[in-house]
């Protein structure tokens, strides 16, 4: 069956602007991914999964120009001891990066593993992405697998003493970057991965994470403040028995962001928590799309997403919990909430549950509302000025999502950013 003509044309136009790396051990995976792209076609505005977010500018042959943004804010995580891996407009920058050697972890560049015929990454590159294409297609992730120009392969075998920090700098107004990272956390190993920065004018990022039995991965991300940047990101995570995955994303600004989390709990007693806080002003569109599959017994999943929107900003949440037959004792929780600071902003939510096991506890909730007038009056009646009171209530609203971050220093870094955003807009 062929694709609709519009989709076919758009897909061909995009592919014409891309060149596949001449890649040793990832070659087969890339060719397979390209075949998937050709079969699915790139997302179009008529696709159900893209109903609330227009993909046009994410698939156009050239990235729309995005002005560089300079801030006097201190750099994210600046006072934190971490192993820095820097990409500038999607290209690894050895000069700005630390030595990639760290006990308990082996880090290679994707470009290096491409030259090898044997590498552990061969078993992972494109594999979770391909699994994540059903039941819902994610063509931008397949496009990434096929054409990613850079990225890292992180093999965690112990408990590294500091977080691995991926820093994405944006230096060119026309940059169009694709990064693909793969992470394998071995049994009993534990790591924290940080990501921050706007990355490029248009950024397509894919991360595949495979966590073996008893492994733990903490992920904290702050997407850069550049107002005009666009991003489509995918995180595919597979969890083994008694493993833990906890991810938090902060988004402050950005004209278009689509963050997809595709999580598969395949071992009993695994835990996956994904959370996000975003604050948007004006020409801002932010989409969290989450798909959690429970395919083992006694697993826990949690989705907590909060959005503060003003001056016509748009927030989207599509979240699904799929409980497969036999995934008994599943504990699934999902909440998505927006705080609309004016009448022009909007929040579109599509929470879904699909359950084929009979002994599970799943709940979902979605709300959208303004600042609580009674609480606002209460604070003001104690002398707290209107703006401060509004800011306090806004931060309080976001707190439930930020509280998902276990590490206090990281949580504080997120709160500092949010306070900065509020202060700039007061």
């Amino acid at each position: 069956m062929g694709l609709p003509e519009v989709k076919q044309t758009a897909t061909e136009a995009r592919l014409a602007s891309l060149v596949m790396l001449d890649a040793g051990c990832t070659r087969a995976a890339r060719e397979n991914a390209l075949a998937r792209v050709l079969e699915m076609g790139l997302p179009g505005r008529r696709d159900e999964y893209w109903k609330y977010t227009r993909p046009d500018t994410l698939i156009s042959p050239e990235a729309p120009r995005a002005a560089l943004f300079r801030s006097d804010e201190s750099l994210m995580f600046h006072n934190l001891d971490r192993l820095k891996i820097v990409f500038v407009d999607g290209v690894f920058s050895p000069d700005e990066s630390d030595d990639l050697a760290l006990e308990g972890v082996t880090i290679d560049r994707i470009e290096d593993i491409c030259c090898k015929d044997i590498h552990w990454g061969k078993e992972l590159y494109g594999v979770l992405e391909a699994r994540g294409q059903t039941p819902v297609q994610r063509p931008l992730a397949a496009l990434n697998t096929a054409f990613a120009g850079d990225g890292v392969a992180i093999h965690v075998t112990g408990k590294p003493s500091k977080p691995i920090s991926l820093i994405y700098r944006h230096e060119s107004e026309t940059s169009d970057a694709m990064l693909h990272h793969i992470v394998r956390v071995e049994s009993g190993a534990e790591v924290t991965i940080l990501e921050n920065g706007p990355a490029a004018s248009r950024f397509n990022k894919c991360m595949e994470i495979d966590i073996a039995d008893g492994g733990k991965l903490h992920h904290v991300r702050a997407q850069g403040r550049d107002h005009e940047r666009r991003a489509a990101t995918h995180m595919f995570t597979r969890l083994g028995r008694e493993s833990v995955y906890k991810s938090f994303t902060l988004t402050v600004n950005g004209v278009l962001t689509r963050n997809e989390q595709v999580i598969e709990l395949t071992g009993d007693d695994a835990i996956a928590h994904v959370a996000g806080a975003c604050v948007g002003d004006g020409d801002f569109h932010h989409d969290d799309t989450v798909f959690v599959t429970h395919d083992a017994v006694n697993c826990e999943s949690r989705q907590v997403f909060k959005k503060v929107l003003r001056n016509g900003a748009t927030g989207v949440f599509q979240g699904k919990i799929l409980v497969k037959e036999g995934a008994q004792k599943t504990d699934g929780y999902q909440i998505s909430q927006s705080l609309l600071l004016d009448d022009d902003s909007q929040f579109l939510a599509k929470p879904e549950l699909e359950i084929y096991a009979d002994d599970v506890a799943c709940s979902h909730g979605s709300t959208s509302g303004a600042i609580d007038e009674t609480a606002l009056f209460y604070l003001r009646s104690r002398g707290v000025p209107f703006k401060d009171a509004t800011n306090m209530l806004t931060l309080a609203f976001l707190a439930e999502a930020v509280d998902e971050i276990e590490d206090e220093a990281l949580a504080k870094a997120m709160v500092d950013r949010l306070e900065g955003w509020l202060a700039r807009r007061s």
Partner: protein
Amino acid sequence: MLEIKDLHVKLEEEEKQILKGVDLTVEAGKVHAIMGPNGSGKSTLSYVLSGRDGYEVTEGTATLDGENLLEMEPEERAAAGVFLAFQYPVEIPGVGNMTFLRTAVNAQRKARGEEELSAADFLKLVRAKAKSLKIDADMLKRPVNVGFSGGEKKRNEILQMAMLEPKMCILDETDSGLDVDAMKLVAEGVNALRDEGRGFLVITHYQRLLDHIKPDVVHIMADGRIVKTGGPDLALEVENNGYADILAEVN
């Protein structure tokens, strides 16, 4: 200190007149009680004085030490010295009680051109005041009023009052939802704040709170007006005979 003259108030959204000419003066150092049946306008009076949205003043004035309260924002009234102890204290998840108190205290100090309290000084002060109200450290750490019992919420109101040291304290049915022991504790907290520079307006349905907070003057409010004013005995009269007799006598 607090002077209310011919105050007429209606609901903003409807044509319903609630206050129909309230005249009331509370002098510094005095405790005035307002009693009255449900729907007489007592709570509306407290909200209008503290600046809650939703009410429209159609006539009359309300001043505190000569300053026009009705033109001020709620936070300006607070800085000028008005404090309302809420009948239903608001739960605010995500805002720590301590953070809230410190922000409020320092915002008021700032508005008055005073130096802000340091974290250490604030902590010392709040601990001392909390102790006398039997508020433990855990309550201070929790989000504002979240999961507090009725009694804890009211004690928390009095703690805020003690920390903010307002000139004019308005207590809106502070006794509602309290058992006898909790009421005593709250009343002790209020009495500890009585001094010659501070005025109190205590709104209540029942005389029993006034056993513990002895008023200097008692007003009876009905249908948006103060219909009778007297000494503490007036409260006893209400307790014994209900409002019907007084209202019949006034009409």
